[in-house]
């Protein structure tokens, strides 16, 4: 008859240990799952607090028994190595598993099984779950703001055109490649501005004028972040070069500029653009609020851009400068043909991160009364016909922003990895 040694696993009773251990873990998992999904308490015969702790204790004992070094079983070894190296790790593993299992049924039923999406008024939402009808009805508002419904094609066309023009660089002929920088820094912004101005704003070519006050939703987020990015990049480059200049006046003016904008929060900059800036404009000169906000964010982000570019300039070895100088190149020649092409390649990931921060900052324009996505949500939330759906709205907006930002951050990681290996 085989005796089971409960004190220590050895070569003879590995099997017993692993079987008993996995059985105990299984029991604890089944207990939690039945509790969460079927609302059955299998251990109701136990006294109060022991019922809740039961799966944890059983699971811990099970994992402890399963912890056998070099058991010979591949799955078991992998499991032990990854989630079960010591008692503390086993406890954390169980806690994480249990909390996932506990949270799953509630959130799933709220978001999917009990949720409503049919109908087109608040009355359709009678269930206990989320009311996606609200998102469905307001979807166009969230995307395009108060822009008239029949003109939404104009925004879509403008975006497609701008994105298409952005990809032109990929298809350029080899002998035109040297004008690529010129294209992206000067020609592209101008064309993009004209496209957006004439298509979205309208007023000519038989298109009806839509004032900027009606722009909004996610499209406004894109417009603002797009313009701020293309304008802040050249400006940042100027200040980065200025900060590294050996002419004291230029150097200190650049430092003052950069440190000033980096030291103040964006929200005060936006306040400045909306209440203080009009005071500084000439009399009878009107500047649209959206334009003022774009200028403010551009000036603000340019300082961050400058610091990123300066990092790239600094990381270039001195030899590059010396070599360029020894060929008799002047300041501008050296920078345009030798330094900047290398430095800018280095800072692409950093610029991508700045852009990411910029996109995350754009909802702030809500504070000065421009209704992009966060602003539209605030508007929809206070609509008397649709009271009480703040949760759905913010979850929807969070998901959209999360997808955009996550994709961008993954892309910038890839860029970083790509340029790291090339050096």
């Amino acid at each position: 008859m085989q005796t089971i040694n409960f004190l220590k696993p050895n070569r003879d009773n590995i099997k017993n240990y692993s079987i008993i251990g996995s059985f105990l873990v299984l029991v604890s998992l089944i207990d939690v799952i039945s509790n969460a999904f079927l609302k059955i308490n299998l251990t109701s015969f136990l006294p109060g607090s022991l019922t809740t702790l039961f799966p944890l204790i059983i699971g811990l004992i099970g994992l402890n028994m399963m912890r056998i070094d070099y058991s010979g079983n591949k799955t078991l070894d992998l499991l032990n190595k990854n989630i079960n190296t010591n008692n503390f790790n086993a406890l954390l593993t169980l806690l994480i598993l249990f909390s996932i299992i506990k949270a799953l049924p509630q959130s799933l039923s709220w978001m999917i099984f009990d949720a409503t999406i049919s109908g087109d008024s608040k009355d359709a939402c009678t269930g206990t779950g989320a009311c996606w009808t609200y998102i469905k009805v307001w979807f166009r508002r969230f995307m395009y703001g108060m822009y008239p419904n029949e003109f939404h094609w104009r925004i879509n066309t403008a975006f497609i055109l701008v994105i298409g023009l952005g990809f032109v660089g990929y298809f350029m002929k080899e002998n035109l490649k040297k004008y690529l920088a010129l294209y992206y820094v000067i020609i592209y912004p101008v064309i993009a501005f004209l496209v957006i101005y004439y298509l979205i704003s309208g007023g000519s070519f038989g298109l009806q004028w839509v004032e900027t006050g009606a722009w909004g939703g996610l499209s406004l987020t894109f417009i603002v972040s797009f313009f701020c990015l293309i304008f802040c990049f050249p400006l940042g480059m100027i200040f980065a070069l200025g900060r590294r200049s050996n002419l004291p006046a230029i150097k200190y003016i650049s430092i003052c500029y950069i440190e000033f904008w980096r030291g103040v929060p964006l929200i005060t900059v936006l306040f400045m653009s909306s209440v203080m800036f009009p005071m500084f404009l000439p009399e009878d000169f009107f500047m649209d609020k959206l334009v003022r906000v774009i200028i403010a964010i551009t000036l603000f982000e340019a300082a961050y851009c400058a610091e990123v570019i300066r990092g790239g300039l600094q990381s270039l070895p001195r030899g590059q400068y010396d070599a360029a100088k020894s060929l008799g190149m002047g300041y501008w020649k050296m920078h345009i043909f030798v330094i900047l092409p290398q430095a800018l390649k280095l800072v692409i990931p950093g610029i991508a991160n700045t852009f990411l921060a910029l996109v995350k900052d754009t909802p702030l324009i809500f504070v000065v009364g421009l209704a992009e996505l966060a602003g539209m949500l605030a508007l929809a939330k206070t609509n008397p016909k649709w009271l009480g759906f703040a949760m759905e709205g913010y979850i929807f907006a969070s998901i959209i922003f999360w997808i955009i930002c996550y994709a961008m951050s993954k892309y910038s990681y890839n860029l970083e990895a790509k340029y790291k290996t090339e050096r």
Partner: protein
Amino acid sequence: MNNIIKRYIPQILVILFVVLIFGFLTLNAQTNMDNRGIDFGFGFLSQESSFDVQFSLIEYSGSDSYARAFLVGLLNTLLVSFISIIICTILGVIIGVARLSSNYLIKNSAGWYVEFFRNIPLLLQIFFWYYAALRALPMPEKANAWFGVTYMTVKGYYIPSMVWENLNVFLYCGLAAIISIIVLRNYASKLRDTQGKQIPVLLYSVALLIVLPLLSFLFGGVSLEFQIPELKKLSKISYIYEGGISLPPELIALVLALSLYTSTFVAECVRAGIEGVSKGQKEAAASVGLTPNQVLKLVIMPQALRIIIPPTTNQYLNLTKNSSLAAAIAYPDLVLVFAGTALMQTGKAIEIVSITMLTYLTISLTIAAIMNWYNKKIEIKEK
């Protein structure tokens, strides 16, 4: 000659350009203000503010001056930043260490935590907590007590307040404890360097910290009472808690959002710092015979901290600047009280916005200066 021209002409042109821009703007501002009959000046700061602030750390009422309103706002900003910095540091260190765990589940949950909270705009997070999550809390009369004495309600979080007697004696005792700990530490390190003796400093320090304040209770006439919030009926349907301290939901939402958001960045700093210490250091330390705890304390941490602290301070600065988003949910911080309400009332746009910006700038530059000094101090001195 050629050199001089090359050196000075660009500088003079740039300075001229900057001066021209500033001159143009000032001129415009002057004409505009003349036209609207506004005069420039900071005299309004001593005028009566005649608005009320719903949450303030110091005594404040409508009859106080604008300068005091500014102080109220500034203190509120500093309060929310301070609490959030503490919470985000604790969370960030835990998550950062968890990302390096050997446990697959822990590593990945920490990774997803970072990816999740980092990629949602802070403003949306604040709105989510304030308008969606905290609104789902129970009304005061239906709230359950947490730990028996605190109440989490839709109107705020009520915690017991402390009523002190002879608080100054207690504070002196605390101060004495801290000073004696510093003296003890110096003495211990001297003893270790000269005689090689180890004193359990930590144990003594904890004992000092507990015993000295305790003595003040026994002999110094210090007493402490807790005032527990109690439910009070205002009218038929309206209830409120009285006594204790009430933390408004704005503050809670702000602290939650700020600390969760910033903790992801702190976690990344911590992870980078620990990963930045080369493996050889750890192995070398172990091979000299240090215990794992000593390796962590004497070899890994000092080097990791050198990498961690500068970017983390930067995150703290960002947090302080981000706390200005409070204005979006009407938490009375510097921006809302001063650049919002006070500006609306006085119409002194230029003065008020400049003061607000200068305040943030001062905070940022001070912390940056301290950081530079600290960096110079802890920098590895290579010969």
